[in-house]
């Protein structure tokens, strides 16, 4: 391309391009001879990592900084959440505070396709699910006329249901970090049905081949379920069993969350 006919209206790539090298993951079957590809047992969760306060802006601790934030990892899932408030909102209910949630996949977060930066219908739907799962745990009547906002960004996702439940855990940690009054910490866990066997905390490959996925979010010390979502067909007794197992897993997630929060209170980050 000669210089005088250079097209300035478009992004011009280099004249020569090289195809990127792909790592060949092969055609990994998620379930081979009864076990899982990553070697976990059927009810084993992926390891969890939490950190509160990663988004507190330092040193300029400014009024625009979130009042609480959290970063959460579960296997390959990486989520960050910022909580603002309680603060003055545009809509104000004189009796109760309002809780709003915003959920967004980062453009590079889903390995199978690039996400547009404009929110899709599924992101809005998940935001609504998160709102409904978290709202019962927040003491909104303690914050009349105020507004609490949570902004969730998925940095890497691995399994839709697992990502939603990880997002719930992440919001819980961020709300607790912000010092917002809660009835309980909400812990969530997902499950999928594969060959009439329930498998906990499935990743994308495992969810893809499953006939049914569900997640349960729970307030373990209050012993209440705040949200239950199932996609796919099962027999009623199968769902019963799954909810039972999920509840147990939630208790384990809860233990991790509360142990972390206690430790972070004793040793405030500098």
């Amino acid at each position, binding site marked *: 391309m000669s210089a005088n006919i250079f097209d300035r209206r478009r992004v011009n790539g280099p004249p020569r391009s090289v195809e990127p090298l792909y790592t060949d993951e092969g055609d990994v079957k998620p379930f081979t001879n009864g076990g899982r590809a990553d070697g976990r047992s059927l009810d084993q969760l992926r390891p969890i990592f939490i950190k509160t306060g990663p988004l507190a802006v330092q040193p300029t*601790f400014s009024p625009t900084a979130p*009042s609480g934030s959290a970063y959460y990892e579960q296997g390959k899932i990486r989520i960050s959440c910022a909580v603002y408030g309680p603060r*003055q909102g545009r809509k104000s209910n004189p009796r109760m505070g309002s809780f709003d949630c915003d959920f967004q996949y980062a453009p590079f977060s889903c390995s199978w396709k690039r996400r547009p930066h404009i929110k899709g219908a599924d992101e809005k739907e998940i935001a609504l699910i998160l709102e409904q799962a978290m709202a019962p745990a927040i003491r909104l009547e303690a914050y009349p*006329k105020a507004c609490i906002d949570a902004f969730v960004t998925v940095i890497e996702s691995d399994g839709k249901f697992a990502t939603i439940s990880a997002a719930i855990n992440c919001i819980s940690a961020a709300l607790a*970090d912000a010092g917002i*009054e809660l009835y309980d910490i909400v812990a969530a866990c997902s499950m999928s049905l594969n060959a009439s066997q329930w498998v906990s905390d499935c990743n994308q490959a495992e969810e893809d081949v499953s006939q049914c996925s569900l997640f349960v979010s729970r*307030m373990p*010390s209050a012993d209440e379920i705040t949200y239950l979502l199932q996609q796919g067909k099962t027999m009623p007794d199968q769902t019963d069993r799954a909810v039972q197992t999920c509840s147990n897993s939630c208790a384990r997630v809860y233990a991790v969350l*509360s142990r972390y*929060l206690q430790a972070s209170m004793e040793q405030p980050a500098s």
Partner: protein
Amino acid sequence: MDVDMESQDTRDIASRIVTPGSVITNDTAFMRGHGTFAERTTIYSSVAGAVERINKLVSVRPLKQRYSGEIGDIIVGRITEVASKRWRVDVNSRQDGILLLSSINLPGGIQRRKSESDELQMRTFFAEGDLVFAEVQSYFADGALSLHTRSLQYGKLRNGTFVTVFPQLVPRSRSHFHTLPCGVDIVLGVNGYIWVSKHVPASKVEENSELIYSDKNEFISDDERETIARIANCIHLLNRLYVKITDTSIIFAYEASLTHAVKDLLTREIAIDLAHNVKTRLEQQS
């Protein structure tokens, strides 16, 4: 004092770290305070923090909390909206505070009736984004704070820089306006907003009442700017390392910081070193 004759279980209530939803006590003798909620006879924690007990009142103090105002508090706020006969002020609280036109001093004539022309030129007193130094006068029915600036020491802030800290680090004290020996004025708002500015003698403002609502900075020399920046950084580091912020702690931090350049004060090692220094000096003093 039946409180002293309690079982082992209830005596270790205090100074325990709890998370939301954890049981604090089943004993009906206790009353629930802030940061807790009760269901039937059990008291649960609603925030993550340390349990505190004063006689029979059990409360949980979180690490971070938003400012909740009390009448008489001296605060710093930022105007967010000019409404009819009032300004909305961000006071780092759950709701915006409100500053009524009738609770400010108008230039010229302390007790002048507020006329319609004052309503029309409200922006000449306070415009959006201005910082105000005010006192909490009362609450509105919905819990919003009503502020007033009816004293010459209150009013618009200028000639300086703004610092935000955790509100619980600023204790309520007799005076919240200090002139430090290094020639810097500080306003310690109990809502966690702090203003650090060049020292301007009060007599100068009293002489010329037009200065109360002035938007213009006075001339600030490079040395003064550096001192202001140093004080601001000292407050930042005290906040970061969770040290009480009072005029004494700021002076201690300032004196200890003089051996370092202003820009290095917030590096981790120096900050920890200085904060430790301030803590030991504060302990020696008390």
